[in-house]
């Protein structure tokens, strides 16, 4: 019987060799393809389990990974959930939002810049924690923005605030109201997370939205900054000129009649540029827009960032602010002059307009991320200011717009933002929505006017039970934020 037993031995040997070859194929040659298949959750789950880096504001971690005693090793915890939710976003298995998404490579440790650190960790047998992301946010300004916005719009209101350091483009505050608790979405209790997500996404107030960058609305009268800048930059007028105004204006005698909503100071056929700005004369800016024409107005708007969606990289899903690109009838050009018709802007965009005017006409790229750090807080990529548009308007034009805006605070509609002892430049906006809906309120300002440290845009989308007016509602919010920065 030994001959067949030997034959059986060889047969068994072949069976085992086949198994080994197949296992080698599977785990060596085919492994990468299998790992990269879209329905393979292992890579995602491993990333979810990993100790991610912190998101830092100053020295405080606003998002950090803590030990978790369930099937995943680390749980993402947001230490000031409501205050920073629009910025941090939240981490879930298979989905992230906000910085958790845009900085995923750094936070998870997959970024090539962290390669050396990972190697060292591997040698030292230390856990490989991801890199940290430190933010440009000024915690006092953020706190002031959130508190004052909440106070201004009330518990059922909606709004957003963005504050920028004009010289560097650093975002000092970015808040959206209402907001949410990302801890409720990042929990490892997936069914609870699912319930919470359903509740939040069905909420009429859309708390998951970061209104500062994702909501674009008619900028209303705050867009007069752009119209004024275009007029001054192109040399159509200087700040000391008289500009055509009047109680009403109907371009070429067709379309809607534009009036000044009762601001009688605008009624004369000609008013000073300062008066037009101080009292936000619609007729004056409508006429100015028609005189400029849509092309020149659009050129200035685009220099400030309109019609472009790639000026802000630090958070995902930024909405593009728009100025119409087609040839327009004068009746529509007139409406764009005070931020109506199809002009729409995000709060970030309006803050950028104010910041560029404050920075002698040069627009800095807005940035939320100050430094990229290794897990040991060693700087891997320092902050570097970037010019987005050198001389978006000339320094001279910027200086003149600033003067007009200072007048607007000192003796015009923007007076609620005045800070004793500081020269503040500001512009209000109350954008009509038509058909009986309450308007949107805007407020943009910067201070100190000569050497601006902060530029703010406040957007109030709704404030039930309150009278919507840019100056009254938005002014105090902008003031609180500016004070927090200047202190």
């Amino acid at each position: 019987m030994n001959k067949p037993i030997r034959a059986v031995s060889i047969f068994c040997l072949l069976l085992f060799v086949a198994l080994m070859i197949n296992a080698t194929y599977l785990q060596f040659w085919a492994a990468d393809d299998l790992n990269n298949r879209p329905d393979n959750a292992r890579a995602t789950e491993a990333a979810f389990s990993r100790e991610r880096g912190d998101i830092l504001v100053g020295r405080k971690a606003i998002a950090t990974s803590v030990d978790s005693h369930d099937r995943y090793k680390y749980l993402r915890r947001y230490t000031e959930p409501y205050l920073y939710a629009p910025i941090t976003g939240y981490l879930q298995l298979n989905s992230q939002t906000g910085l958790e998404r845009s900085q995923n490579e750094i936070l998870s440790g997959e970024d090539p810049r962290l390669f050396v650190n990972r190697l060292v960790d591997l040698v030292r047998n230390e856990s490989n924690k991801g890199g940290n992301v430190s933010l440009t946010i000024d915690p006092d300004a953020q706190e002031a923005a959130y508190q004052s916005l909440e106070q201004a719009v009330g518990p059922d209101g909606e709004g957003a605030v963005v504050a920028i350091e004009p010289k560097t483009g650093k975002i000092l505050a970015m808040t959206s109201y209402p907001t949410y608790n990302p801890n409720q979405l990042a929990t490892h209790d997936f069914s609870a997370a699912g319930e919470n997500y359903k509740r939040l996404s069905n909420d009429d107030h859309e708390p998951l939205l970061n209104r500062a960058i994702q909501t674009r609305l008619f900028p209303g009268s705050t867009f007069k900054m752009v119209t004024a800048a275009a007029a001054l930059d192109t040399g159509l007028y200087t700040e000391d000129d008289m500009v055509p105004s009047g109680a009403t204006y109907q371009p070429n005698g067709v379309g809607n009649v534009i009036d000044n909503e009762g601001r009688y100071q605008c009624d004369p056929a000609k008013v000073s540029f300062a008066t037009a700005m101080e009292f936000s004369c619609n007729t004056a800016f409508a006429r100015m827009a028609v005189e400029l024409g849509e092309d020149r107005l659009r050129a200035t708007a685009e220099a400030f960032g309109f019609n472009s969606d790639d000026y802000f990289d630090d958070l995902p899903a930024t909405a593009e602010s728009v100025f119409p690109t087609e040839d327009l009838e004068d009746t529509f050009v007139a409406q764009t002059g005070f931020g109506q018709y199809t002009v729409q802007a995000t709060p970030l965009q309006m803050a950028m307009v104010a910041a560029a005017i404050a920075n002698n006409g040069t627009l800095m790229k807005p940035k939320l991320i100050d430094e990229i750090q290794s897990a040991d807080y060693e700087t891997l990529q320092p902050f570097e200011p970037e010019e987005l548009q050198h001389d978006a308007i000339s320094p001279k034009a910027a200086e003149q717009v600033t003067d007009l805006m200072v007048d607007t605070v000192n003796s015009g509609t923007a007076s609620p933002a005045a800070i004793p002892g500081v020269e503040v430049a500001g512009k209000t906006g109350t954008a009509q929505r038509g058909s009986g809906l309450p308007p949107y309120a805007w407020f943009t300002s910067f201070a100190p006017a000569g050497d601006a440290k902060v530029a703010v845009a406040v957007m109030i989308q709704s404030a039930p039970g309150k009278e919507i007016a840019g100056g009254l509602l938005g002014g105090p919010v902008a003031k609180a934020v500016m004070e927090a920065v200047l202190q």
Partner: protein
Amino acid sequence: MTNNAGLMGFVHRRRRGAELFLLVLALVVGIGAYASVGLGVDGEVPANLIGYGSWLAALAVVAHIAIRFVAPYADPVLLPVVTALNGLGLAVLHRLDLAEETSNASKQLMWMTLGVALFVGALLVIRDHRQLGRYTYTMGLVAIGFLVLPMLPVIGNEVNGARIWVRLGPLGFQPGEVAKVLLVLAFAGYLVVHRDALALAGRRLLFIDLPRGRDLGPIVAMWLISLCILVLQKDLGSSLLFFGLFLVMLYVSTERPGWLFVGAIMFLCGAVAAYFFVGHVTERVDIWLHPFADARGDGYQLVQSLYGFAWGGLIGQGLGEGIPYRIPEAQNDFIMAAVGEELGLTAVIAVLLLYGLIVERALRTALICRDGLGKLIAMGLGSVIAIQVFVVVGGVTRLVPLTGLTTPFLSAGGSSLIANWVIVAILLRISDQARRPVPDLTEESGDPDEAQTQVVRVVDR
């Protein structure tokens, strides 16, 4: 029977010291893996490491001592190999327990204890494997009885589509695992008696000696039984295992490849018919051919298994660092995927080599065994392990369609573990007989007529 003269001149040593040394290495594998699971999952050495390690070591030492006393010439490699596999299996089960909050590892340790007890018991009771030849038909009948058990109402139980479980209160039991041992013994007993009839008659057709039609009875019977298992219990794996086993044993006992030829044709006919007419088989084959076609449904388990292997790569994620609990039934048939994910290709190859060693040791024992029954039993048991490992590991790595068998010594499951420990006991018993020095009988006299009648030790009943 082929002459063993070439091997007769060589006297085997007992090698019990080598066995003890290898056992220490095996325990290092098992206990080290257990500690590593604790470090990987909780970041600390498990609190019960000493108790657990002592228990495992005690079991190994008890088995070793039993061998020293009742089978001193037994093969020294088998026990360490199965101890290492069993220890590794326990560690992987413990790792899955921590993730799934089950308690398979502690149950498995109890079953292992029982398995070692039966192992020692078998070595003590079966003092000579030739005893096993006396109960051929009894064992065959009992085996068939076991196979029928799951079909009975009340106690029969269908799990994951296969009706191979018997459930008595809280105790689950897979009779097929015991049946496979009994079947090897029954086949061996039957074939050693009838091999001549099956071997000598026949006609030659195209270089192959085909058996006579009237001798086809047993193989047809076995084929039908296998088909019944397949159709009635939907147990593709056992069906394949039993038929393959019978075929190999028939071939070895008769030394006629013609049987393999006939068997292979019968198997192919059965397989093709099953593919077309048995829904369960169709489904398995379709999943094998197109696992990603329904990766979230029917193909989910196999796809997750493949992902696990791929994620493990060459050296694995490390125990406690992977996600093997994503694979349904990772503690049973798919335990190799968990090994592959957390310990990598390195460990998969190592485990396959350990299985290969068991098979090699069994077949070597068959080669050097001096009697036909022992040869057939050792060869049969070795083949059972080889086929079973091939079918289940090939299934989870998508080499062959998934059939559903336990992975010997690794998978959670008492019946399988116990049956495999008894298999090892029988193999050791046979190898003890085979390696034992032959009583010196040749130098008495040159003249056979003057020689004393050779004394044959009668096996006591």
